């Protein structure tokens, strides 16, 4: 067991007399280990053991949630006492030469809050899955994958070693491949799974390069390790003093490589193409991937290595940022561009889950921009709130699909408002939270924080306008979707029905969180930011009435209402026919076509990267057939000639000799076989007699 190995621990920040990792930190590994163990057990179960497999998966994750809550409570109590908890447990996996490959896990505010979020949302999705996959014959397999997925993601969350993080990261990639392709008999699902796997692999190559470079420069794989970890001051100094190409420092270059990996996983432009296709998986998978886990992994990774990304940032006397770094600028621009780009495409999609997928890509752009502009707290706050309301939207969409007999096209829905009351109300909550409807919803506060950071940024101005534009688009396409799905007349086939209680209950819980979570990040009580940064929460109601804030409030309200109004004006209560062209399409057909075809990114890849590989493959094929094939044929001919010669020799010379020898042998064997009388004791006697002889020889020869 791992615990036997060397265990180290620190509490950094304030030097308080805690010299040991608390029992919760020491046993933190159980959080990912339990779901993985559960998945292992489920993998061994037979198909009909549905109840048991669901119980195992849900039970193990509940236990993880319980532990995560304890860990969170531990960190919060430390924080309330003025200590910034950072407890790490490290051990050496193996050694080669003078280098050691270290693994370990960490308990700090970031990992604690993320673990709680992942466990909680994951658990709700697990429960929802029981209802959603009720009729699927591969129910147990699904829970096996889900459990493994949750465990791997929790591994990413608690990792204190970039290698452990990478291993869990790849495990996440593998399970997402398995889950997206869960209905592998559908060719589209199989293709989508392959696409997701290959596209994220592109980012992972860069990530791996970054890891290797980081290891080569700092000699450690650990993030934090009593000041010798790669994210701690001494290592960062080393990284800053090294210069890479293009005027970048090693820190910046490694940061960019790691960001490439994060971009692949989080679906940032230009590696976003796999994410919408991943909608081929069952809906709980979409929710799990898009809300709680996989895409959040990229953002979480950037938050985790934020010290590296921001290394070398000039600071003012008071410690505030007085500049930015190249890596963060790239993160910001990519994030902002992705936010607008994906929001534009989302406008012209008709698949309910595809719209949400593009919306996710767009929101991830917001998170990245938030990280780049405002630091860890801003990005992570949006990550957490988004996790809840996006999970809500996906599960709501799943409920709608379930209720409409597996129909996914929003043009064939409509009027569901009265048939599916719970789903409609919760979905509306999620939609308003996503749009950032002022004051009431959590999405407003988290998105507001990003816009505020963008607005206040003294160094880069462009992203602010992009992000504002993106916010308008967000409100617009969400209004369009809700109008199509819930308002107007029913255009579907068959009678829509409300989903079972096991599916609606998670919706209600998530909806309440989508509203309530905003309370921990308002300027009046910025608890979340203070908690992540390890400072006491300062604020007060008066901050809500300051001019600056009111101005921003007004701006974002205008943005949101603009988007909502535009959407309602175009789509509200129109109830178009299923095959009638879209209102937007009527207004601007050329733009619509472009947006509908996802701005031709897939096609671009088709004629560039994929065509390139295709050409290489053709070349290799030709070489195989003509060149290597010819050589092989020539060699084969030579050997054939030898064989002919051999045969002649065999027939006339060898065989005769051999036959004669065989006759002799057979005669001899007849004589010897009499010894083989089949009695065990005779053999034993011969053996014993041999022993006597050998021993006698031995003793005789050893005479002095």
């Amino acid at each position, binding site marked *: *067991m791992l*615990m*036997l190995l060397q265990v180290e621990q620190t509490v950094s920040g304030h030097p308080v007399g805690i010299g040991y990792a608390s*029992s*919760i930190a*020491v*046993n933190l590994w*159980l959080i990912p280990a339990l779901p993985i163990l559960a998945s292992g057990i489920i993998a061994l179960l037979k198909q009909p053991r549905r109840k048991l497999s669901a119980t195992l998966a849900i039970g193990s994750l509940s*236990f993880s949630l319980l532990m995560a809550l304890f860990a969170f409570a531990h960190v919060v109590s430390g924080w309330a006492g003025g200590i910034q908890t950072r407890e790490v447990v490290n051990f050496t996996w193996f050694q080669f030469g003078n280098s050691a490959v270290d693994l370990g896990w960490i308990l700090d505010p970031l990992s604690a809050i993320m673990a709680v979020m992942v466990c909680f949302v994951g658990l709700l999705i697990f429960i929802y899955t029981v209802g959603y996959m009720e009729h699927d014959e591969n129910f147990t397999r699904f829970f096996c994958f889900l459990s493994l997925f949750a465990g791997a993601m929790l591994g990413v969350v608690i990792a204190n070693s970039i290698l452990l993080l990478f291993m869990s990261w790849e495990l996440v990639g593998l399970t997402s491949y398995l889950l997206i392709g869960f209905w592998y008999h559908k060719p589209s699902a199989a293709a989508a799974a392959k696409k997701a796997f290959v596209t994220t692999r592109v980012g992972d190559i860069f990530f791996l390069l970054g890891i290797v470079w980081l290891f080569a420069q700092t000699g450690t794989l650990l993030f934090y390790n009593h000041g010798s970890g790669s994210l701690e001051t001494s290592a960062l100094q080393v990284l800053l003093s090294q210069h890479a190409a293009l005027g970048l420092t090693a820190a910046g270059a490694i940061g960019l490589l790691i960001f490439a990996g994060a971009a692949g996983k989080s679906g940032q432009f230009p590696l976003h193409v796999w994410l919408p296709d991943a909608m081929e998986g069952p809906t709980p998978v979409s929710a799990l991937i898009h809300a709680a886990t996989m895409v959040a992994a990229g953002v979480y990774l950037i938050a985790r290595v934020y010290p590296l990304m921001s290394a070398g940032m000039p600071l003012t006397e008071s410690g505030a940022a007085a500049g930015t770094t190249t890596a963060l600028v790239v993160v910001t621009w990519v994030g902002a561009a992705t936010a607008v780009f994906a929001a534009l495409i989302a406008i012209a999609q008709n698949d309910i889950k595809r719209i949400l997928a593009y919306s996710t890509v767009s929101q991830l752009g917001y998170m990245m921009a938030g990280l780049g502009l405002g630091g860890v707290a801003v990005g992570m706050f949006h990550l957490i709130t988004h996790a809840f309301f996006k999970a809500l939207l996906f599960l709501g969409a799943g409920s709608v699909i379930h209720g409409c007999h597996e129909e996914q096209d929003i043009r064939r829905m409509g009027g569901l408002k009265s048939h599916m009351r719970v789903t409609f109300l919760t979905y509306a909550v999620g939609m308003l939270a996503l749009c950032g409807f002022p004051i009431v919803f959590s999405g407003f506060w988290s998105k507001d924080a990003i816009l505020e950071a963008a607005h206040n940024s003294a160094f880069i101005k462009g992203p602010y306008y992009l992000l504002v534009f993106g916010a308008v688009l967000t409100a617009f396409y969400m209004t369009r979707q809700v109008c199509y799905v819930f308002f107007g007349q029913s255009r579907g086939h068959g009678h829509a029905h409300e989903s079972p209680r096991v599916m609606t209950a998670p919706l209600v819980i998530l909806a309440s969180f989508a509203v309530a979570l905003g309370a921990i990040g308002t300027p009046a009580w910025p608890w979340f930011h203070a908690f992540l940064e390890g400072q006491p929460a300062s604020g007060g109601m008066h901050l809500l009435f300051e001019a600056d804030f009111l101005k921003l409030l007004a701006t974002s309200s205008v943005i949101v209402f603009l988007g909502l109004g535009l959407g309602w004006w175009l789509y509200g209560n129109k109830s178009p026919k299923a095959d009638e062209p879209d209102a937007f399409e009527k207004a601007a057909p050329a733009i619509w076509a472009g947006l509908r075809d996802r701005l031709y990114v897939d096609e671009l890849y088709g004629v560039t990267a994929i065509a390139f590989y295709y050409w290489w493959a053709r070349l290799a094929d030709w070489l195989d057939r003509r060149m290597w094939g010819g050589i092989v044929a020539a060699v084969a001919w030579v050997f054939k000639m030898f064989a002919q010669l051999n045969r002649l020799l065999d027939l006339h010379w060898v065989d005769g000799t051999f036959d004669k020898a065989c006759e002799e042998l057979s005669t001899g064997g007849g004589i010897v076989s009499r010894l083989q009388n089949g009695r065990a004791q005779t053999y034993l006697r011969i053996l014993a007699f041999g022993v006597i002889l050998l021993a006698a020889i031995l003793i005789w020869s050893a005479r002095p």
Partner: protein
Amino acid sequence: MVASSAVSNLDQIFIILRDWVTHFFPTAWRPAIGVLLSVVAIVCVFPGLFALTTIFERKGLGRIQNRIGPNRVGPFGLFQPIADGIKSLTKEDIIPTSANGVVHFLAPVILVVAVFMGFAVLPMGRNMVLVDMDAGLLFFFAMGASTELSVFMAGWSSRNKYSLLGAMRAVAQMISYEIVLLLSSVAVVMIAGSLRPEKIVDAQNQYSYGLPHWYIFTPWGLAAFVMYAIAATAETNRSPFDLPEGESELVAGYHTEYSGFKFALFFLGEYLAMFSISGLGTTLFLGGWSAPLEALSFVPSWIWFFGKVMMSIFVFIWMRGTLPRLRQDQLMNFAWKFVLPFTLLDLLVTAMWRFMGEGWLRWVVSTVILAGTYVLMGRAGMYRKHFAPRTYRYAE
């Protein structure tokens, strides 16, 4: 001899007595005389206890079955064992004509000797262990294993099919449950880190908040104790595992053909085995001679030991009066498909406990694993029972 202020003279009275007697002898003889005295004490005390237990059992069973029990000999029938003893001694010693005389004679002797040997390593009080052996536990189990052979000898030498069947059943059952007995003790050995009974008791003789650190008060210890208790019941052929002597099928099992004093020896051996196995259980799980509350430490340690042993004996009697007898295939299935796997799991949990370090977490984890598996295995067993056909493979 240790006589610190905390340990009263009453507690050490037997040690003091022994030392007083030995000091009449030359120095060179003293250790031998001391051991001899202790052996004499054990050989006297436990048969006395046996006599008491028989009357206790018959009275208790009577009470459970709503009748009076023996009440003719002496006040409340208390002298019944004496009468029984005299009867056994004076009855004719019958040896069947076709029986194998030597083996027939040796069987009860070997049984009683082997069982008596087991007492040598049990600490019956503070400083009260006959031989403080480094591998004491192993010695105990080695002696326990030797009794199986004597049972076989008794059954085989009688030349009686009931005896032989009873012996075969008894041996199969004892072997099956001996594994469990050993493995559940291994859990304790893993935590205490020693095979020496003295040290195991010492490890449990600590208190926090006035409560003892007995192993039965831990999740793995409780599980191991329950398994140990089941195995001990089977090992001593007590109800509900008393098939080898099931009188409705086998007359009296392997000692059907014994009478008189040899029969009394078997009877004695059986009860002594009960005492020794209860004593070991007490040592392993119930803190041996340590007091159940720190405040009660002033009571002499040997009182606690014998009190705990007698409590276990009472539970044995209670079970005999309450539970019906199992069938042979049920008995074997229970041993190999439930008790043994669960004991192995308990070993695993114990190892986890050992390496998880202090804290509340290991309590939660081991409780969850053990309770969960118990429920799952129980359910699975019931599930099978409904569908699987009944088999008699082990009963052939």
